């Protein structure tokens, strides 16, 4: 993996004292000091040598985690900089505790060619305070009709291919894309939506869509494509990752397939476990996303999927939109909510504290080595010599979400005013603090 950021000045050193270091890659969980020298994790012995300057960080009561990775983020550049820029999105990531973010290709122009990827990487190197790793499209212009130049895109060092926001409907084309990507060991990510079943659906098809007369988006519309992806992963013997999984049926399919060793995985977004379709009854477009908020039964199934490992990755699907775009009739509003600055708090609060589904250690795995392994990137570890991307987390800090304080350029969050327990308090990229509370 190429680092987007230049290393800091030589001979800089930092020591993070008394924190609970959780490094799943090395099966470490202990209260210990962590040293950073010249932007890399170092042995403590390195720091005992005389240094020109040692920055001391007191991490008593804090968790010292490998820098968190959010592998599902929309940064909107190029093309939609009124919603978000790489610069503002990266700041939002830092404020949320993320040192690495993976951005989706549905920009304008779409990231389906090496020059757009190069532009994004340059822009990220220039303006981004965290690591920004681009993905590219599966199909040209995300149209689902012909393959994007996947080989050249791999050369341009994309970490995965996905048509996120769209879904390749032609199973044959998808099959060939997966087969082709296998040659480059390039993971395939998929937004699972059957266009025929979903139609013009804008909310979960169920009790609330029926009462409110809003076009329904049935769970089967996701489950059908999850099943398709399981079949293709088996057929092509290559990994497919199902993005933002929302339905109970998808959970059953993934669980069964993973038990058989199929190369399939799934990620879960905070809104899909924090909210149900009941939230749409006031037609507030900040509760409109794709896939939609589902029923309590689906939420319960997702929580079980997180607990038993069926869902292995946490991600935000950070999807910024300007206020004027969201302030329209419900079915005319764009899908999506911002998430970078609230996701960690919501997941710690709900998964660790409220429901007790996983411990903080597993939560950190799902944000670090799980996405790092899937995407084959050198990140998500505190091994000696690794680039010093570190997130300090206070798992017991109580705070309230205030959209006015977001670093993101957009405010379309359904969580304004929520009181949460747990958040990142400092974000360190390549040894440098890029954000602290």
């Amino acid at each position, binding site marked *: 993996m190429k680092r987007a950021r230049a290393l800091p000045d030589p001979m800089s050193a930092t020591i993070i004292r008394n924190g609970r270091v959780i490094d799943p890659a090395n099966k470490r969980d202990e209260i210990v000091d962590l040293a950073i020298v010249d932007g890399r994790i170092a042995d403590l012995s390195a720091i005992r040598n005389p240094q020109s300057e040692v920055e001391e960080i007191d991490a008593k009561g804090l968790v010292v985690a490998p820098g968190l990775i959010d592998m599902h983020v929309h940064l909107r550049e190029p093309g939609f900089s009124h919603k978000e820029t790489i610069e503002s999105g990266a700041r939002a990531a830092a404020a949320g505790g993320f040192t690495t973010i993976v951005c989706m290709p549905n920009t304008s122009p779409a990231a389906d060619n090496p020059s757009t990827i190069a532009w994004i990487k340059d822009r990220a190197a220039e303006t981004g305070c965290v690591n920004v790793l681009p993905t590219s499209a599966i199909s040209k212009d995300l149209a689902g009709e012909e393959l994007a130049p996947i080989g050249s895109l791999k050369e341009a060092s994309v970490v995965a291919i996905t048509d996120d926001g769209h879904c390749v409907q032609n199973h044959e084309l998808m099959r060939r894309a997966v087969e082709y990507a296998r040659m480059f060991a390039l993971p395939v990510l998929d937004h699972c939506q059957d266009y025929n079943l979903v139609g013009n659906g804008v909310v979960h098809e169920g009790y609330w869509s029926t009462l409110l*007369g809003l076009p329904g988006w049935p769970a089967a519309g996701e489950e059908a494509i999850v099943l398709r992806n399981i079949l293709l992963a088996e057929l092509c013997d290559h990994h497919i990752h199902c993005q933002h999984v929302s339905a109970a049926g998808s959970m059953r399919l993934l669980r069964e397939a993973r038990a058989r060793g199929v190369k399939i995985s799934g990620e879960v977004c905070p809104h899909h476990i924090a909210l149900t379709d009941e939230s749409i009854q006031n037609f507030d477009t900040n509760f409109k996303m794709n896939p939609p908020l589902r029923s309590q039964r689906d939420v319960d199934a997702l929580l079980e999927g997180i607990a038993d490992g069926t869902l292995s990755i946490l991600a935000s699907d950070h999807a910024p939109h300007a206020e004027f775009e969201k302030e329209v009739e419900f079915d005319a509003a764009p899908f999506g909510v911002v998430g970078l600055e609230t996701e960690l708090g919501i997941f710690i609060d709900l998964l660790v504290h409220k429901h007790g589904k996983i411990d903080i250690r597993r939560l950190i795995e799902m944000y670090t080595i799980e996405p790092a392994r899937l995407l084959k990137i050198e990140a998500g570890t505190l091994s000696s010599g690794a680039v010093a991307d570190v997130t300090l987390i206070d798992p017991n800090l109580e705070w309230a979400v205030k959209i006015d304080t977001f670093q993101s350029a957009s405010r379309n969050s359904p969580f304004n005013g929520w009181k949460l327990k747990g958040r990142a308090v400092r974000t360190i990229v390549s040894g440098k603090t890029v954000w602290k509370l």
Partner: protein
Amino acid sequence: MNVRSPDMNRRWNRKDLLGLRELSADEINFILETADAFKQVGTREIKKVPALRGKTLVNFFVEPSTRTRTSFELAASRLSADVINISASTSSLTKGETLKDTAKVLEANHADIIVLRHSSAGAPQFLAQRLKSSVINAGDGAHEHPTQGLLDLYTIREKRERIDNLNVVIVGDILFSRVARSNIFGLLKLGARVTLVGPSTLVPREFEKLGVSISHKIDNVLPDADVVNLLRIQHERQRKEYFPSIGEYTQLFGLTKERAKLLKPDCLIMHPGPINRGVEIDSEVADGLQSVILDQVTNGLAVRMAVLYLCGGIST
């Protein structure tokens, strides 16, 4: 002043009428009682009262409609309000202006009451949250059409002198019908038993969670019905996959002359209009003695006067 009831504010304090789901049974009954008073105005030599004199009502119809718009216009005129009609083709929406901006402009022009017909469910809620003006929902997508629901309730109450414990059968395209939703919410609140009848593709089973029954055999439910409300089968909005043909629909669910014989003699036949004669209902049945379809139109005027008076009469 003896005309003021001390509990007026307890019985009605809404500036908007968005749907029947959010109203209490008492609020619905209060509208119906108020409509009684306004219905009586229609029998006078001079059918106009000054209740909303000086108020401006905007009929803002983003989706076309003749009956509902005319009914609101007449209701407003009888209350002495000034009326402006804006349709989708004359509004700036066609020039790319957002609903919010158009509505803000209307408000800046001192529109006191905005009657909104819109193809998107929730559009009236959207406006009501953002405007000081009263917003009256004249039909939003497949969501609600509260004044139609109220006039149906009013007509049943007028003809049968009660609503509780009546068996009301609603036949047709429930899935896409705002009229059905407002009727279901209102009827259940006032204690009626509701049965939905239609093709299984157009009758969502989720409604059973509200306590309504669902049947796909109209002949089984007609004998016990006190009211049969037939919805318009809309060819234009139906896609082919919901049912194979109009002919098969009529054969399975149409209220034919033969089927009408199954009805109790005092069963009311209702239809929100416009009627597809020979499709959901036979012509003779639509014009027969049990039909109260024209009473519905007359009562619509009284109900809309009541709604405009209650929502628009309060100082904002």
